């Protein structure tokens, strides 16, 4: 005897509940999503550097390049004294780069500082004789902002200290500078920060100038 199976119609998948859920999720995510990309600038504080006696010994030999930031402008010094560009000794006011208007750090003033620091980094103190640990000290600098300076100006100055200026002529900037600039990445395994390019390569000499910035804090 032949058996006939009753034809079973496959019902259509009801997508409306999923649609409702997705329609609810999208506005919620749109509201909470950040379309502005937020990054970071890495900073260290003075105490971190002078912990051991070896560090203290190293500090005596270090170049101690320091940028002092006041409302009037910038003053650059090292353990050899004033590091102002030739013809700008700093004077009694101790200023190498003066702001046209008090408290306003224009792009021109910051660019002038960056080009001068690049000159100090590459040409004047480019050789290892000035550094105990060339890999570390060569990239180290201290920034001392005065208390009334705005935080925004400090951040702009930190950019100028970190990145090699594009289009510099004396000495010329490297031609193969990565577009990502001087990037710091957090190594989750070692749980520490490292200087790396977007593809993981070391970009210290191609993009970074003074990326180990020590920010003076407290009453200093």
């Amino acid at each position: 005897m032949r058996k006939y199976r009753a034809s079973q119609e496959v019902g259509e998948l009801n997508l409306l509940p999923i649609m409702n859920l997705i329609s609810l999720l999208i506005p919620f995510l749109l509201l909470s999503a950040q379309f502005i990309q937020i990054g970071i600038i890495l900073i260290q504080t003075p105490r971190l550097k002078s912990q051991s006696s070896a560090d203290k010994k190293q500090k005596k030999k270090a170049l101690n390049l320091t940028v002092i930031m006041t409302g009037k402008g910038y003053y650059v010094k090292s353990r050899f004294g004033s590091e102002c560009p030739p013809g700008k000794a700093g004077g009694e006011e101790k200023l190498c780069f003066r702001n046209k208007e008090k408290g306003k750090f224009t792009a021109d003033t910051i660019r002038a500082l960056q080009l001068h620091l690049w000159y100090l980094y590459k040409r004047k103190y480019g050789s290892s004789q000035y550094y105990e640990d060339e890999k570390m000290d060569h990239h180290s600098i201290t920034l001392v902002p005065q208390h009334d300076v705005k935080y925004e100006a400090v951040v702009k100055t930190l950019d100028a200290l970190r990145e090699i200026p594009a289009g510099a002529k004396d000495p010329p900037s490297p031609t193969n500078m990565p577009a990502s600039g001087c990037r710091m990445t957090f190594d989750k395994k070692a749980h520490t920060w490292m200087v790396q390019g977007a593809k993981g390569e070391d970009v210290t000499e191609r993009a970074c100038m003074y990326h180990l910035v020590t920010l003076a804090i407290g009453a200093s």
Partner: protein
Amino acid sequence: MADATNAAYEYWKRKKKAAKQVKKAARRDKKDMGLTITSLLDALTIILLFLLKSFGDNPVNITQKKGELQLPKSMSTSNMADMVDIHIGESAILVHGKSIHVNVKNGKVDENVKRDGADGFFITPLYKALKEKAKKLKTKAKRAGWRFEGNALVAADKAIPYRLLSEVLYTANQAEFKLYSFAIVKTRE
């Protein structure tokens, strides 16, 4: 006469049948014409995935608000990592998104919450909150086998004076946080 009547009746019958068929076909067509939402669902799923990805990109959530917290712009391309975050807004200081009852007015912290008075740098409630965080992180680091380096993320309003930032960094330094990441808005200008 009868023939004519019959013919008229037949004609009317045929017309009625045809009309019935047309109505039936229309009803059948209407039943088949359901809304096709599959492609719409595909598009929505793609948008949802994109938004979920961008939502999970930043390990620390920083919400900018005019008059409260506006980050400065920077050329830095470095990305955030998961760490203790300190928000310095125009009106308050927060640790990990929670209020520590430290109010800010005109870029200054109330002197009552400072250990050494108006000229001091040590902000007591901030120190207590950070010390507690440091203790927890040290235990976590010991278990995970990495060294506690005292990484902290500082998201400060661009208009605050350096003095206020210095006070916060000084206090965080006392609580064993010595490596700071300043949160900025990425720009290439």
